[in-house]
């Protein structure tokens, strides 16, 4: 493989390590895009981390805020970013200057796990820039070599250039305020829309025909008795009203991709539409990563620990490795650590499929002793974990493989807010509760379900959003602020139907004041 100029920047000794580790990874069956490692100083690292892993983004103050936070917590010794890798083909990964060789090797192993995941997990198919829509085949391969266009580095840089051009024309203040509004809506996307056919071609709008009320046949002189004028008028009105009502329904059905709806329907200027599209594109780029946080980190950790302990470390390094690994895997304050949960789940799957602890016979067996010593020596573990990494996301992963035994063994619990003691408390160790809580948290990336219901609410051109309430209220102050952002895009009053404390509430913002009305439609 010829060296890219970037790779040439990597010190020779690390490049040698990279080649060694890649060889080992391939032997284990990992299948990854080419990886370009770059060595960064800590402030470069913080900069890139603030930009979400990319060297170049559109200008916005929140990146500056993130940078300040990262720099400060690094300078105070609170945290340090060991590794960062972006879903791109080729993948770019960053190494922190001044880390020990053991650390760098650990990062390399971990990164290869991530890149294998990017390439093979079905969620990430939607980030193929050359994918025709819709993406329906989760394991599609193009010939033998799956080599999609994922040049998101370029795309993000182009977004940056586009926004900068807009800034040159309209001024940073105006553009940044608009970006703020767009970002408020960033999470209002439909994570599944990537896999379903997008909207049907709009039907050619038919000219509304004049209303004609069918008349009974009659002789001339009987006409006004059989088809009395008043009755005909009445019918005419009725039909017109109905038609009017139907016409008012836009969108025809609920729309979860609020951003797309606004791009297509809000009265935006061209530059505004361009920015909203950029924000939406990037939201969909980051969606798979949020959808597979546990699986992705778990997979990378699974492989770094396997490769480091079996192949890469020699005896002088193993203690350093173990210490670092323990730091990554730690559960502090009883909080769930996705790295740890993920890796433990993969190991449990591997173990179960090696021993044949699955299928109806296993499920039906009630003999604890027999279960404990159940071992069919099938050796299917490796095969199974590879299959799982391709075909699942966090929700289905947890749903299928987090078993009662697992929850018990790994001491999972659910916690909630206690009004009496004013603190978060463990509220259950029941398997059912724990799993339900975890799944509901992961569903829709932990975002509330918000739909566009009606773009002509109460026939006043107002927007009506509906919150599909699933047991948890919205945070009120944020909801009001977000409505304000929506009004600035929709340019008409915006309403949100939700529940608060068990009552139906309609939140409304008309551009001047917020109001809320109990008992919404």
């Amino acid at each position, binding site marked *: 493989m010829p060296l890219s100029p970037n790779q040439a920047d990597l010190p020779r000794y690390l490049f040698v390590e990279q080649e060694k580790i890649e060889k080992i990874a391939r032997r284990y069956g990992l299948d990854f895009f080419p990886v370009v490692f770059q060595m960064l100083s800590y402030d470069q690292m913080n900069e890139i981390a603030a930009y979400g892993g990319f060297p170049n983004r559109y200008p916005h103050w929140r990146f500056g805020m993130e940078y300040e936070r990262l720099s400060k917590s690094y300078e105070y010794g609170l945290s340090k970013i060991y590794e960062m890798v972006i879903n791109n083909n080729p993948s770019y990964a960053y190494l922190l200057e001044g880390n020990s060789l053991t650390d760098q090797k650990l990062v390399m192993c971990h990164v290869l796990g991530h890149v294998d995941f990017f390439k093979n997990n079905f969620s990430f198919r939607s980030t193929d820039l050359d994918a025709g829509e819709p993406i329906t085949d989760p394991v599609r391969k193009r010939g033998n070599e799956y080599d999609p266009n994922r040049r998101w580095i370029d795309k993000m840089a182009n977004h940056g250039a586009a926004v900068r051009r807009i800034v040159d024309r309209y001024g940073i203040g105006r553009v940044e305020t608009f970006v703020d509004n767009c970002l408020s809506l960033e999470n209002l996307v439909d994570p599944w829309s990537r896999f379903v056919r997008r909207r049907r071609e709009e039907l050619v709008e038919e000219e509304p025909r004049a209303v004609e009320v069918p008349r009974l046949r009659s002789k001339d002189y009987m006409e006004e008795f059989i088809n009395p004028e008043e009755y005909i008028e009445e019918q005419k009105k009725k039909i017109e009203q109905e038609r009017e009502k139907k016409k008012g329904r836009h969108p025809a059905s609920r729309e979860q991709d609020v951003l797309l709806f606004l791009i297509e329907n809000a009265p935006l200027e061209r530059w505004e539409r361009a920015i909203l599209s950029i924000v939406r594109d990037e939201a969909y780029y980051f969606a798979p990563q949020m959808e597979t946080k546990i699986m992705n980190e778990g997979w990378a950790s699974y492989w770094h620990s396997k490769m480091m302990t079996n192949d890469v470390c020699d005896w002088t390094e193993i203690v350093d490795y173990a210490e670092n690994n323990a730091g990554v895997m730690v559960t502090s304050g*009883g909080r769930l650590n996705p790295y740890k949960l993920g890796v433990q789940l993969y190991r449990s799957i591997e173990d179960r499929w090696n021993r044949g602890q699955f299928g109806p016979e296993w499920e039906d067996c009630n003999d604890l002793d027999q279960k404990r010593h159940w071992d069919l020596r099938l050796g299917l573990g490796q095969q199974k974990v590879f299959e799982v990494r391709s075909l699942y996301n966090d929700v289905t992963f947890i749903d299928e493989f987090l078993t009662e035994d697992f929850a018990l063994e*790994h001491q999972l619990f659910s916690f909630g807010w206690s009004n009496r003691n004013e603190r*978060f408390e*463990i509220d259950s160790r029941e398997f059912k509760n724990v799993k339900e809580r975890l799944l509901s948290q992961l569903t829709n990336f932990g975002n509330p379900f918000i739909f566009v219901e009606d773009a002509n609410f109460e026939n006043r051109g107002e927007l009506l959003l509906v919150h599909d309430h699933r047991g948890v209220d919205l945070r009120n102050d944020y*909801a009001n602020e977000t409505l304000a952002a929506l009004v600035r895009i929709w340019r008409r009053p915006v309403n949100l139907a939700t529940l608060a404390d068990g009552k139906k509430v309609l939140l409304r913002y008309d551009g001047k004041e917020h109001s809320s009305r109990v008992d919404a439609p």
Partner: protein
Amino acid sequence: MSLKIDQDHSRFRAIVRGKIRQNLRRYISQGELIGRKGKELVSIPIPQIDIPRFVYGDKQKGGVGQGKGDVGDPVGGQEAEGDDGQGQAGQDAGSHVLEVDVTLDELADILGEELQLPAIENKGKNRIVSAKDRYTGIRRVGPDSLKHFKRTYKEALRRAVASGIYDPKEPIIVPQHDDRRFRSWKEDVEPVANAVIIYMMDVSGSMGDEQKEIVRIESFWIDTWLRRQYQGLESRYIIHDAVAREVDRDTFFRTRESGGTMISSAYKLCGQLIDQHYPSSEWNIYPFHFSDGDNWSMDDTLSCIELLKTDILTRVNMFAYGQVESPYGSGQFVKDLREHFAEDERVVTSEIRDRDAIVGSIKDFLGKGK
């Protein structure tokens, strides 16, 4: 090195500055910032700057955790900031407050903007100069500690190439004596303006803790503002009841005596301090006196006024008197001062009823631009 993110970062800082300015009056009256002052930075807690979204409310949210504990046990501690993005599932207890560091200079600027304080007029006391060393040049001789390695090796490389002994296959460069290069410095002369603040406070029994707290808050902001105006700023502290003595800053705010009050003793000491250490030709002098307005006798008040007229006022930029209202003080002194110095611009008086009045009194004191 300049980073791309610098622009985004500076816009974020501008937003922060705006927030601080918005909340400045609250910070001042609550004295929040004083404990947060480092040598050059103040750490200011501001409400989280965030992009609002539709999100779930915190309290019903709950989550899933891992570890020991029975039902009903509290979930331990705050989420630790670990690796990037750790703790996705089940984070968030309580809201975060953003701590931003602001330099004292910046804080002074914000104060100046918010209270519309004028910059202080130049008194023409810039005759004093100080020399500063800057490493700007390169020379051939110098101490080893200043050796410039890069230049030295460049020089050696140049020599090697010129003399034909350089072999690209085996690029070994050995610097010789003549190749050595050293950093050299230049002396820059800068005019400096020095200032001294002489704080005087009545610590007699009638000054309670709240009164002292007000003085403390006020002195913090006066320090901050004057430090911005002068390169070198010194502070001296004098406490007095019936007698006066000079103390350090800590003692100044802690001491509580029970004796009577003779303000003239402090003014006398102040005059002596100026005589001994701060010739008015070289120093900008700012005496600030705080009391609850009770003085021992009218005679003493008259001798205070005499001292001010003859001794102090001739040598200082301005004389500031702040009267903190206390339940015990008569509040007479400020009236006497106003009576005698109504025409004199160098005397600034201010009455501070409570903490909310601090902002106004800072403006009284510093709004003259002296």
